[in-house]
């Protein structure tokens, strides 16, 4: 089953960000069987960034410069047992907010049962005030909101492989039964 992912990235200035009520998005998860809700801004983001070290050897440390440029990270991700358990209209206030705050929709991909939208918020000096992604599938909705003062190349970091843990790693490790993999060093 496809999942509906709503990625909402807001690169709005904090004052404009304050204008958006995230509670409207929380309604999306009323019927969800699994919810992921992350809100990191202000002091929490600084604390998180503080654990990463500049010039550190771990991959996570390599994204510290990117993290230092962020002012807010918001995730709302909901998984449902069956289709039709969330109302797509709930996203309209968010879209309206993005439009009003001059976010540009740079990507829209539509298929019969799912769609994705990517928004960027251009600010002065060729930088980005944030990124928004909305991805909707029949049984999953995910909203990602990232605010900050980003460079264009930070987009590549956000979508690339360096520094950011792979979501699949933990899912693989949850499989306790032998997979019968071949030893690949011979």
């Amino acid at each position: 089953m496809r999942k509906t992912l709503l990625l909402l990235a807001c690169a709005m200035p904090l004052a404009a960000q304050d204008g958006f009520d995230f509670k409207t998005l929380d309604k999306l998860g009323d019927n969800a069987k699994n919810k992921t809700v992350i809100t990191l801004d202000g002091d929490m983001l600084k604390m998180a960034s503080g654990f990463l070290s500049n010039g550190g050897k771990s991959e996570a440390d390599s994204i510290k410069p990117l993290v230092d440029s962020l002012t807010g990270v918001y995730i709302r991700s909901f998984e449902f047992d069956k289709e039709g358990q969330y109302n797509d209209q709930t996203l309209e206030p968010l879209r309206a907010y993005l439009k009003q705050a001059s976010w540009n929709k740079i990507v829209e991909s539509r298929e019969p049962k799912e769609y994705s939208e990517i928004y960027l918020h251009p600010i002065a000096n060729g930088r980005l005030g944030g990124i928004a992604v909305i991805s909707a599938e029949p049984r999953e909705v995910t909203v990602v909101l990232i605010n900050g003062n980003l460079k264009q190349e930070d987009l590549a970091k956000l979508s690339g492989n360096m520094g950011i843990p792979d979501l699949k790693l933990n899912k693989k490790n949850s499989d306790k039964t032998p997979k019968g993999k071949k030893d690949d060093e011979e």
Partner: protein
Amino acid sequence: MNVTGESAQLDFAAILKDNQAMVFSVALRFVRDRAAAEELAQDVFLQFYQQLARIESPAHATWWLRRTVCHRSIDEVRKRKLRPRVGLESAPEPAEPSRPPDPMLRGRLLKLMELLPEKARMVVVLRYQEDLDPSEISEMLAMPVSTVKSHLHRSLALLRGRLQKQEVCP
């Protein structure tokens, strides 16, 4: 299971049930005594219990438990210096083996595993008991992939060689 940014209270009892065989078995490969393995496994779970608030998901829990029991087992062996002091031929059979095609062979293999240095032994356990691939083992043990592969190669050669020697000269 609901995971939220503000609070993530996982079901400890469920995680315990799902992972107890894994934790116990990894420990058993090192301390070789079921009572000691049980004690070590209990300690790992209690340590996990203290960290429960930081665990994000059942998959994360499994990863955390596996990594902790690996490191604790290696430490335990180093502390106890559990090297065989008797000849392999006179070593007792392990208790209650699961159904292998050749119980004697299984016992001999487990005994031969004790010849391996701790890290090499752990690499073999993670590969052939936990079915992790070399890159996952590398991440688990904070060891270069090339070192993982080298441990595997040499350990298998040693185990195979010793086993063949036993079969030729029982």
